[in-house]
């Protein structure tokens, strides 16, 4: 199979006609159904029917994660709740998660998008798709699952963790496509070695890896150790989840499925749209979504667009691998973490000082987050067991709040560097 949906190879001219038509419909519908967008569009003097050209998109206002938070949980949905058949959520910048809703049709479109990504990675209906992304509110697990089923492949809903069992079933069932974070793929390779499972004993041929930034060096390592072709998949729950873009066999950028999303690169400071090839903040507009459709959603991810034709035959523009963020969000084992969230947790524990630091490192191919907290006289005890209780309590609060296990390290007062201006909250020792 070269592609899953004929839309992937639509001539540019036809594709852009389709985009224009869908953009117009989306804007008109949002104006009518979502008070937030009506107000925003009114502010810039925009009326239904004002979209005449794709470049008119640049006149529309941006949407940010804060807008989603301000309308928590369902305030930006464009359909009544009875039409929503699924909810997913990801971390917000503070207490409230970012909530997304899907109609039955959205679920079908999403599954179609993910099926396209599996095919782009070399998948067919004969494959056994081993989904080791987490199942739950996170879009990774269920996203890949529905895509595999849409393709007609066999979905194996492993979810994350329990690596030895993952490997045993991979051997027994003959999984052919592995879906997980790139760091977890390396972790699986390492545990395979420990278990004495060679790459000849598994049938994996491809990896659909994403939900965290990675490098070409990691790709080489993963491909060698698992004997697979590793493909970068990109997505974010606000826009749909995994399936926004995927690397084809060329592995030279990720095709953005432009019949569903219009990508732009903007200057994060001025908001000005940048020409193809220039690096800036990635912005998406949903043009084929009912439940939650966002106009010019600012992802805070840094990338660039490549409009040159791809030898694979797909006509959709390619985005460069994500190289960073314009905010302080960290992605740890696929979980989005804002330092402000950790701070909120720490501040709930009486006596803890507001001085903390997050140290991210990659240990044996897995990201680890260490939360360093200064010990104030109020929480200090001469008994080690009380200090250990405090560490456990902090770790447990962070885990229940962020869904992420962390190591807590107690520090002496003033040992965390004070800065003159914005405090340095994060030390990222991972080599990207």
């Amino acid at each position, binding site marked *: 199979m070269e592609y899953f949906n004929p839309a992937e190879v639509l001539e540019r001219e036809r594709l852009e006609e389709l985009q224009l038509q869908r953009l117009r419909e989306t804007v008109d519908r949002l104006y009518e159904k979502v008070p937030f967008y009506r107000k925003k569009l009114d502010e810039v003097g925009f009326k239904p029917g004002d979209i005449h050209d794709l470049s008119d998109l640049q006149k529309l206002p941006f949407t940010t994660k804060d807008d989603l938070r301000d309308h928590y949980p369902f305030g930006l949905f464009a359909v009544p709740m009875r039409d929503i058949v699924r909810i997913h959520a990801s971390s917000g910048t503070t207490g409230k998660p970012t909530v997304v809703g899907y109609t039955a049709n959205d679920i079908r479109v999403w599954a179609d998008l993910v099926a396209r990504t599996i095919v782009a990675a070399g998948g067919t209906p004969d494959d056994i798709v081993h989904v080791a992304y987490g199942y739950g509110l996170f879009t990774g697990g269920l996203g890949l699952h529905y895509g595999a089923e849409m393709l007609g492949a066999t979905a194996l809903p492993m979810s994350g963790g329990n690596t030895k069992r993952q490997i045993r079933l991979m051997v027994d069932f003959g999984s052919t496509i592995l879906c997980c974070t790139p760091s977890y793929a390396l972790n699986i390779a390492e545990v395979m070695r420990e278990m004495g499972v060679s790459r000849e004993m598994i049938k994996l041929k491809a990896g659909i890896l994403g939900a965290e930034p990675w490098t070409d060096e990691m790709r080489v390592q993963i491909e060698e150790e698992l004997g697979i072709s590793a493909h970068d998949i990109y997505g974010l729950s606000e826009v749909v989840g995994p399936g926004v873009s995927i690397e084809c066999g060329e592995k030279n950028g990720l095709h953005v499925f432009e019949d569903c999303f219009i990508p732009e690169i903007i200057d994060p400071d001025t908001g000005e749209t940048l020409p193809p090839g220039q690096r800036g903040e990635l912005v998406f507009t949903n043009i084929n979504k009912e439940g939650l459709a966002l106009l010019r959603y600012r992802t805070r991810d840094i990338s660039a667009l490549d409009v040159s034709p791809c030898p694979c035959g797909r006509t959709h523009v390619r985005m460069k691998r994500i190289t960073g963020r314009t905010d302080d969000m960290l992605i740890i084992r696929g979980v989005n973490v804002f330092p402000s969230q950790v701070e909120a947790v720490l501040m709930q524990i009486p006596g803890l000082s507001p001085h903390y630091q997050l140290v991210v490192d990659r240990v044996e191919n897995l990201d680890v987050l260490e939360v360093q907290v200064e*010990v*104030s*006289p109020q929480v*200090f*005890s*001469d*008994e*080690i067991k009380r*200090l*250990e209780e405090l560490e456990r309590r902090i770790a447990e609060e962070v885990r229940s709040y962020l869904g992420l296990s962390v190591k807590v*390290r*107690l*520090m*002496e*007062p*003033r*040992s965390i560097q004070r800065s003159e201006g914005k405090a340095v909250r994060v030390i990222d020792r991972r080599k990207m």
Partner: protein
Amino acid sequence: MKVRQVSVFLENKSGRLYEVCKCLADAGINIRALAIAETADYGVLRLIVNDPDTAVRVLTQENFTVSETEVIAVEVPDRPGGLAGVLAPLYDANVNIEYLYCFVEKSGESAIVVFRVEQIDRAIQALQGSGFTVMREEDVYRI
């Protein structure tokens, strides 16, 4: 009957113990006994000093995290069975010992055991009831 122990939080970093001791030395404070409990990342230094008030003040000034805890110091004969003998009444009185450390008195005839217990008053009663000398605060500081 209760003795004030000064506890200091120490990260596992070279030179930190020295800095605590230097700080106390500069203030003319004499350390009578000390013990360190350690984990992989940090330690807790427990000190009996001749002047706990000054010790707490100067250490706090130097930004150390300090706390004061009440402990008891008991004189125990320096011979086999000495410690077992003093533990018996505590065991009988159902006193939980968090930790203890010992030092030998200058005369060398008896050892002094510092106890950190959960039920301090009950411990004092039990020890005195069994004929042990629970040392007075000022005597410990003066050793």
